[in-house]
């Protein structure tokens, strides 16, 4: 009896393994067969997408995946023809658990699956190690959320991002903390991830440069929930502003515990990782009046932004954070393929660098390192339980509908510059140039006045 049971088990196990093994082999075969040209050839473009789909940041990762899926569905409904073949996009969504070790494993998996491009990852901590793997395989990678400067400083021609990096964000935040928030002493906490640490370092530099004092530098990690110990330590130094470099999963409870410990008048400031509705939900009443920054401009100030927002919310629910950027990343990749008229990674990679695309998050063009050109940083404050837009710093003035006050300010500034140049030109007796300059200046002033009028009317 023992014999037959053992052999029966062995047989069952062997059959199971065989079935698993066979089913795995079947998948890559049809893909390899697809590109064979026929009458109306069809080619499947595989786009990889990586984000944490499990763990404390899974709500952000799923948000990213939904945006990528929405973009892929839209592209498929357009029935594009590239390089003389009908193109069908397929999304390979992977989970990296916000863990750098997992990120590299998943990156290798995507490379082995021969994806044409990768959108992701979400965290800088996973994007940076994975970018080496994609670069070695020549696979273009566009991240919608990785803001650590190192990502594009490695010299990889395949690395791009559709969001400003933390050098800019940290500088804006540091200046804002010292100047607008009247922060004479600033305490800094970060979660020791590549993103949190990088942003906090840039913030510290900017605060010191703006004349503020650092009250203390504390650390936590991206899975913690209890911050009473480090907040108590910070409480002793009586800071005006507490800055947190990290994600909303920690930022929310941190604000709550901060207020519960008695740091009533201290203002809380965080970067793009905490600029989510989740943070307000987690912090409850304590979130009222706190600040965050997010690269880009508000969705309804971008052409097509509101339409995207409505469509996404109807299909997947409230936008968590990076959905617009990931959507743009997929669209930019498809746009590059269209312009190169090829889905081959080697052929459309150079076209990505020449992108000039109006996305729902911003106008997208890349510099020679792969960073977003003219990226803006917007600041938000919690008012009545929601993130309210305050202002935008940096970046190109917004075109078309809905010009924000900040961009109107920029436009007026540019108009003033143009008029000044025109005046200089007149002064140097180059009459034609002067006339053109004055015309340009007048047009710019008119444009700025219209913009201000529109903004004022909007307000």
């Amino acid at each position: 009896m023992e014999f037959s049971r053992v052999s029966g088990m062995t047989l069952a196990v062997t059959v199971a393994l065989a079935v698993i093994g066979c089913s795995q082999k079947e998948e890559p075969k049809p893909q390899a067969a697809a590109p064979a040209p026929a009458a109306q050839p069809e080619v499947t473009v595989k786009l990889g997408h990586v984000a944490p789909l499990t763990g404390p940041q899974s709500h952000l990762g799923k948000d990213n995946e939904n945006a990528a899926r929405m973009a892929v569905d839209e592209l498929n409904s357009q029935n594009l023809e590239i390089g003389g073949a009908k193109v069908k996009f397929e999304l390979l969504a992977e989970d990296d658990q916000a863990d750098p070790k997992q990120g590299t494993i998943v990156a290798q998996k995507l490379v082995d699956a021969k994806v044409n491009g990768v959108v992701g990852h979400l965290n800088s901590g996973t994007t940076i190690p994975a970018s080496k793997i994609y670069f070695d395989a020549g696979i273009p990678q566009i991240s919608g959320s990785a803001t650590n400067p190192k990502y594009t400083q490695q010299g990889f021609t395949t690395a791009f991002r559709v969001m400003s990096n933390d050098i800019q964000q940290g500088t804006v935040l540091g200046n804002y903390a010292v100047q607008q928030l009247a922060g004479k002493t600033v305490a800094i906490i970060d979660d020791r991830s590549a993103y949190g640490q990088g942003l906090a370092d840039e913030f510290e530099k900017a605060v010191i440069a703006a004349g503020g004092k650092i009250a203390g530098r504390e650390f936590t990690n991206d899975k913690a929930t209890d911050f009473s110990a480090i907040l108590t330590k910070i409480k002793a130094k009586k800071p005006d502003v507490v800055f947190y470099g990290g994600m909303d999963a920690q930022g929310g409870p941190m604000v709550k515990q901060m207020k519960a410990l008695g740091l009533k008048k201290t203002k809380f400031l965080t970067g793009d990782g905490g600029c989510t509705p989740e943070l307000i939900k987690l912090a409850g009443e304590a979130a009222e009046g706190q600040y965050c920054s997010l690269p880009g401009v508000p969705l309804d100030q971008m052409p097509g932004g509101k339409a995207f927002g409505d469509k996404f919310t109807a299909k997947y629910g409230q936008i968590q954070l990076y959905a617009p950027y990931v959507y743009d990343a997929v669209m930019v990749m498809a746009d590059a393929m269209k312009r190169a008229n090829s889905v081959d990674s080697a052929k459309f990679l150079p076209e990505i660098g020449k992108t000039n695309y109006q996305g729902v998050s911003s106008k997208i063009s890349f510099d020679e390192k792969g960073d977003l050109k003219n990226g803006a940083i917007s600041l938000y404050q919690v008012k009545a339980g929601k993130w309210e837009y305050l202002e935008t710093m940096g970046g190109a003035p917004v075109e078309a509908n809905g010009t924000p006050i900040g961009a109107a300010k920029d436009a007026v500034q540019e108009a003033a510059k143009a008029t000044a140049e025109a005046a200089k030109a007149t002064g140097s007796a180059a009459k034609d140039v002067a006339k053109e300059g004055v015309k340009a200046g007048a047009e710019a002033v008119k444009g700025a006045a219209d913009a201000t009028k529109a903004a004022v009317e909007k307000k």
Partner: protein
Amino acid sequence: MYADAAFFSLALMDIFIQQIINGLVLGSIYALVALGYTMVYGIMGLINFAHGEVVMIGAMVALAVIRMLLDSGLPGIVIVLIGLAAAVLACMAVGFTIERVAYRPLRHAPRLAPLITAIGVSIVLQNLAMLVWGRNYHAFPPILPSSEHEVLGATITSIQIAIILIAALMMLGLMLLIHRTRLGRAMRATAENPSIAQLMGVDINRIISLTFIIGSALAAVAGLMVSANYSIAHYYMGFTLGLKAFTAAVLGGIGNIAGAMLGGILLGLIESLGAGYIGDLTGGYFGSNYQDVFAFFVLIGVLVFRPSGLIGEKVSERA
């Protein structure tokens, strides 16, 4: 000058007391969860890695019930108590089911098999919770009075006071159960030697199931406390909590009830004081991000000098 020094040391005292209070709150929660680990290990020699997930399920169920009752017009305390009752029932059911389905069939298997099964159950419960309750964080509605009180210069909220008191009460209740009742005697007998206990007429299957049930009930209370204190519940919250509570149980002496309580409180205090003072002690070399490392260093230190934990008994190898 002396006034300044006095003021300075008073401020330091405030911080110290605040850290102690933080540590006590944290430690009370760790102690409650550690009890579950220690009881199961004492009876079965099994480390129930799924216990952290039972805590999480308690928190999620309590939160779901509380949210359902939010508009019912009942006072906040009553809603929370009903949520607690629901959580306790749910966790008892989960604990009982885990034991029956995953651990009982492996009772005579080599020690590694139930260990791996426990980890497997933990993963299954985590992902089940993710499927049932989603990936997003669930906020604890602000229905409990969250007023802050000043105690000797430190701030403590009413929820935190409740946590410390309730945890102490539950631990006291458990000690009374173990040492003063027939059931407790049966549990101690089963922990000492299951076969002899069976010969003495103890139904060890029933005792083991009851152990899981009691441990899970405590886990449900701990889960509600955690979600009330931090105002969030998330399907992943049981992972780190379970790990820390297991560490606390080992620190105190696994298999020893009083050890779990002591280990829990001690671990909470060590973490709190460690995070608060590690930077100053090491001159900024180790920052507060090493607070977990500090706790584990203490654990290693204790185990090197007292391998069975602080108050654990030396268990002689069975002949």
